[in-house]
């Protein structure tokens, strides 16, 4: 069975170039994607409908991977032109590299807060970071649980610590790994926050200190989250994350709304947690 790769990201390309024919182990098989382990690093091979992500190679085809002869523990061999898993071969040669450079935003640039507020106010999704956002803007609170409440406190403390440039260690530690799912809400929030601060004020010292604290606490969180941080802390992201910042600081509310709809569909709440992180990052300058 033969498939064709459409594109891969820089992290996937590095693996491709890192050594001669590295072997990967199938970690998990889902309908739309397969995860592989190489050392402690997780790599993803997905069908065409999965949004571009990190450590990711996307195929031209749409496939139900659960229908293929693939099981956790199976071995895959990566060569410069192909990825082979038993009788399944993925041609890598036509794939193109993507890694959009992240935008630099002028300090003092004004984002479209009104459209964003409308979107977040109306979103029917429930996540702890939205709980924080809603309470900040005195909006009605959706039903929440102990995890949401904890996240609200952790975010509030982190934002305060960053603003005052003290107590960073504890506040970062309190956020990382907090929440459910593959990339917990606390980590998605932090990723959004750091991505935006890097776009606004890449040289500020408190940002660099925060990044160091995050890196120091990697063991607190899971494999998938760690690789997400590795990308965002290098000020890289996906086209979608970049597009969000561009449209948020642009003059086209319709385009911003469309980007927000796409982010809303990223993971269960990952996209929205990321957005709330971006909002908090901008609020640092507004309040100062």
């Amino acid at each position: 069975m033969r498939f064709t790769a459409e594109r891969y990201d820089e992290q996937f390309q590095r693996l491709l170039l890192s050594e001669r024919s590295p072997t990967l182990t199938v970690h998990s098989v889902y309908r739309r994607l397969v995860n592989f382990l190489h050392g402690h690093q997780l790599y993803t091979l997905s069908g065409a409908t999965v949004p571009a992500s990190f450590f990711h190679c996307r195929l031209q085809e749409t496939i139900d991977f659960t229908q293929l002869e693939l099981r956790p523990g199976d071995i895959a061999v990566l060569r410069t032109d192909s990825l082979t898993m038993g009788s399944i071969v993925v041609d890598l040669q036509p794939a193109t590299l993507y890694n959009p450079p992240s935008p630099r935003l002028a300090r003092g640039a004004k984002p479209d807060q009104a459209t964003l507020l409308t979107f977040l106010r109306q979103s029917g999704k429930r996540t702890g970071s939205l709980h924080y956002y809603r309470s900040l803007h005195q909006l009605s609170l959706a039903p929440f649980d102990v995890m949401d409440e904890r996240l609200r406190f952790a975010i509030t403390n982190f934002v305060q610590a960053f603003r005052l440039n003290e107590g960073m260690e504890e506040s970062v530690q309190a956020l990382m790994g907090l929440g459910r799912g593959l990339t917990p809400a606390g980590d998605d929030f932090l990723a959004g926050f750091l991505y935006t601060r890097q776009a606004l004020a890449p040289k500020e010292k408190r940002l660099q200190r925060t990044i160091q604290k995050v890196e120091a606490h990697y063991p607190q969180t899971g494999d998938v989250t760690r690789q997400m941080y590795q990308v965002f802390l290098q000020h890289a992201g996906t086209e979608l994350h970049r597009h969000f910042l561009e449209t948020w600081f642009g003059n086209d509310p319709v385009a911003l709304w469309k980007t927000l709809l796409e982010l809303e569909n990223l993971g269960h709440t990952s996209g929205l947690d990321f957005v709330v992180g971006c909002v908090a990052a901008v609020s640092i300058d507004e309040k100062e």
Partner: protein
Amino acid sequence: MHQQTIVRKKSYFDSVTLMSLTAKIKGIEGVHEVVIAMATDMNLDILAQTGLLTEEARSATPNDLVIGLSLDEEKQMETVLAAIDQGLKPVGASGEAQQVRYASIAAATEQGEYNLAVISVPGRYAAREAMQALRRGLHVMLFSDNISIEEEIQLKTYARSKGLLVMGPDCGTAVLNNVGLCFANHNRPGSIGLVAASGTGLQEVLVVIDQLGGGVSQAIGVGGRDLSKEVGGIMMIEGIQALQQDPNTETIVLISKPPHPSVKAKIMATLEQSSKPVVLCFLDAEPDPEHPQYDYASELAEAAYLACARSGIPLPAPDDQKLQEAAAKTYRFAPSQQYLRGLFCGGTLTSEALSLARKVIPIQSNVAKKEHEKLHDVLHSSGHVVLDMGDDYFTNGKPHPMIEPSNRLERLLQEAADPTVKVILLDFEIGYGSHADPVGVTLPTLQKAQQLAFREGRELAFVAYVQGSEGDKQDKASQIRRLEEAGVLVGRTNAETVRMALHILTKGGAQ
């Protein structure tokens, strides 16, 4: 108090599974505390705070699942763990959750925790089953038709006294707390709440809201007779009050054919209690000058636009791209070809087509209320006709054409054989409950119809609308693409599609 903490190594679950499972387990009587999460340090800290952190959990990694339980009694543990296992089971290959079968409503309410019954049984049994459900405290969605108006009044009056909803009879669509019932489309959760006495009309507003990037909090169907003088809008009023109280609803939309004046007065009085913006879409009705505070839509898609605008959603500027497409397309019509034939599956879509077409051409329909527009022989068309093929006359003993379209396919060939037919207008409904591939099942007949016309030196203009959301399982984009590849012009809303058909029909002057 009995506590237990379990670690499942290398078990990944997405947050929606864990969140909904946590909520479900917490709802079981006797469950004092529950934490189901990936074993990150922060989540273990929550376990520690709730007194559920064990040595085993302490050594778990962020790639492991941890389940902490605190129960009133030890004997409950087995049941609760079984419920957790059930919740963590992967869904079937079809993506559908497992179903439990019960022999009766009584058995279902005794053995499970439910709050809604969807009744779809032959009409003569439906009222009895609905009343059983209401007596057991369940809201009712009454998909069945052929229920007398007396029974409907009895059911709705009783439901109102119990604070319950009766959606129907003959109610095809509802969305409650983001769950679509019967014929429903994939919708983004949001803040627009709807009450509708119209199935495909409600679907039309829902899918256009989705196209525009809006989201829906609730969509309550009430059945086509609810706004009649006899029923008095009992459930429309209950629905409005429910949306007024719903914290997730910011904008209210009402959809119906024009209500009886006495019912309209009650509805307006109920709306006056509401501080939320309201959009009224009473098809064919004029704006009410006594209530200028509301937005009035004369078309279904317009109701969706107004609701999104009221909700603050930035909207793209309207364009006439599709009308230009219709204007640009050329056909080899024979001089005999003069008439429009609309073969619809959706009743309200037919009504909307009739409403738009009558402004341009003399037209008849089986949904017409005006005597001169009534189609008396529904089996044979003459002149301009729009036909609701989901009407009781066509569905008596047969499936609805949204589910199984063979009736419409036969009619399509019949219309194609008529040398006076110029434009054939079709709707395709996708989403839950509809045919798995409505376009695919129609295309061979459509091609056969065109060949039939070609053989006689004619060409038919086919114009179609695919009513659905991008997230619907039938893949809306592919349904549209296949129609376009077959030479069919496809509109983005029902109203736009009707206008495209009228444009082709009257290019060179109305007939």
